[in-house]
C-alpha cells in the first residue's frame, strides 16, 4: 500500500512539475477572482465577514479547476487501466490523488493568501491570526481534497465532466464553506483574532472524518470497469 501510494504520488507530482497545468491555472484564476471581487464589490479593502467570504469563494472556485483536471491524464492516457492491472489496493489511488490535490491546494494558497492580504484585506494579520488561518485552511484543504477526489473520480467518467464537477462538489462542500467563513471572520477583524474557533474546527474535523470514511468505502466502485 505504501509502496503504491509512493509510486502514484511521485508520478502525480512529476507530471504536474513537468507540464504544470493545475496549480498555475488555479493560482492565476484565484488572483483574477480577487480583482473581480474588488470591482464587483466596489471596495478597496474588505474586513470581517466580507473578507472571509471573498477568501472562501475564491479558494473554492479555484479548487473546482483542480478537481476537474484531477483524473483527466489517467483517463485519456489509460493510466487508470495501467494502475488497475497492478496487484495493489485500489485505495492507494484515492490516497495518492487526495494527497496530490491537497498539495495543489496548499501551493495555491501560498499565492492566494498573500495576494489577498496585499490586494484586499483591510486589517493587518498578526502572527497569531496567521497561524490560526493556516490551521483552518489545512482542515479545509483536507476536506476539499477528499470530496474533490470523490467528485473528480465520478465526473471523469461522464460526458458532462466539467459541468458536473461544480454541481456536485459545491453543495457537498457547503458545510466547509460555512465553517471556513465562520472561523476566519474573527481573524479578519480590526480588533484582532479572538479565541480559537474550536466549534468550527470541530465541524471541519468531523466533516473530514465522515467524508474520508465514505470515500474509503466507496472509491473501489468508481475505478472498476
Amino acid at each position, binding site marked *: 500500500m505504501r*509502496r*503504491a501510494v*509512493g*509510486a*502514484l504520488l*511521485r*508520478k502525480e507530482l*512529476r*507530471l504536474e512539475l*513537468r*507540464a504544470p497545468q493545475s496549480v498555475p491555472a488555479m493560482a492565476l484564476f484565484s488572483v483574477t477572482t480577487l480583482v473581480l471581487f474588488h470591482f464587483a464589490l466596489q471596495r478597496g479593502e474588505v474586513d470581517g465577514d466580507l473578507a472571509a467570504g471573498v477568501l472562501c469563494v475564491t479558494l473554492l472556485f479555484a479548487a473546482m479547476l483542480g478537481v476537474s483536471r484531477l483524473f483527466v*491524464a489517467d483517463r485519456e*492516457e*489509460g*493510466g487508470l*487501466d*495501467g*494502475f*488497475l*492491472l*497492478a*496487484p*495493489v489496493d485500489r485505495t492507494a489511488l484515492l490516497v495518492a490523488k487526495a494527497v496530490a490535490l491537497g498539495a495543489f491546494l496548499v501551493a495555491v494558497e501560498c499565492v492566494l493568501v498573500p495576494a489577498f492580504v496585499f490586494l484586499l484585506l483591510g486589517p493587518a494579520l498578526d502572527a497569531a491570526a496567521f497561524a490560526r488561518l493556516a490551521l483552518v485552511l489545512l482542515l479545509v484543504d483536507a476536506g476539499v481534497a477528499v470530496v474533490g477526489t470523490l467528485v473528480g473520480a465520478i465526473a471523469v467518467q461522464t460526458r458532462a465532466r466539467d459541468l458536473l464537477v461544480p454541481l456536485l462538489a459545491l453543495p457537498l462542500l457547503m458545510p466547509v464553506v460555512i465553517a471556513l467563513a465562520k472561523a476566519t471572520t474573527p481573524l479578519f477583524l480590526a480588533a484582532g483574532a479572538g479565541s480559537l474557533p474550536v466549534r468550527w474546527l470541530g465541524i471541519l474535523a468531523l466533516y473530514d472524518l465522515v467524508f474520508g470514511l465514505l470515500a474509503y468505502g466507496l472509491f473501489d466502485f468508481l475505478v*472498476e*470497469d
Partner: protein
Amino acid sequence: MPPRPWPVTVAAPAAIELEGLTRRYGERVALAGVTLALPAGATLVVFGPNGAGKSTLLRILATLLRQHAGTARVLGHALPDEGWAVRGQVGLLGHEPLVYRDLTARENLRFHARLHGVDLERVEELLDRVGLARRADDKVHTYSRGMVQRLAVARAVLHDPAVLLLDEPRASLDPAGAELVEPLIGAAGGRTRVITSHDPAGGLAEADIALGLRAGRPALLAPAGEVDSAEIGALYR
C-alpha cells in the same frame, strides 16, 4: 458455420478456462457463450471483425471487466472474485499504450515497476531490449507510434507475467520493430498467450488454437492446424 465440438485433449493444466462467458453493454451483447480451455504455454488467437468482442474478452481476462454470465478461470483463479490473485500475473497490451505522454519512457516503466514491486534494473534491461535505451529520457509524446508500441510491450512484460493478452500487438510496428519485440511477446517466451488478429495467415501461423468471433458469439473454435485462412476470412463477410 456451427462451432465444431471441442477437439483438443488437454494434457497440461489449463491456464485459461472459460465456460459460457457472456458480457453485455446495456442491451448490446458483446460476448456470448464463449467456452474453451487453453493449456499453459499455448497460444490462442482470436479472429473477428471490429466489435466482435475480441477486446471485451481480453479485458475480462485482464480483470478490468466483469462478465455477466459464465465462469472464467485464469491460472486456476475464478474471475472476478479472485481477481487480486490474477492481477500481476497477466500482462495486457491493448490499443491504448497505458503510458503517460508527459513522462519519459524510463519514468513510465519505473512507475509500473514500483506498482508491481519489480526491481528497477529490469527497467533498464527492457529499455535495452526494445531498443529505446538511447531515447529513454525523452518524453513519450515525442515518440513515433512504433516507439510508443515498443514501450507498451516493455510495460506489458515488465513483471514477467505468466499470461500475455495481446490486442493486435504488431499493428503499429514496422518489421524491424516487430523483430525486436518478438522474443518478448513471441511463442519462444513460453508464456500462455491470447492474441487478437485480423491477419488470417499470420495469426494462424502462431496459434495453437483459433477462435473466431462474430457479434460476440463463437463461430469457430478449432486447433489451428485444422483451420485454413479461408474459414477465417469468412468471419468477416
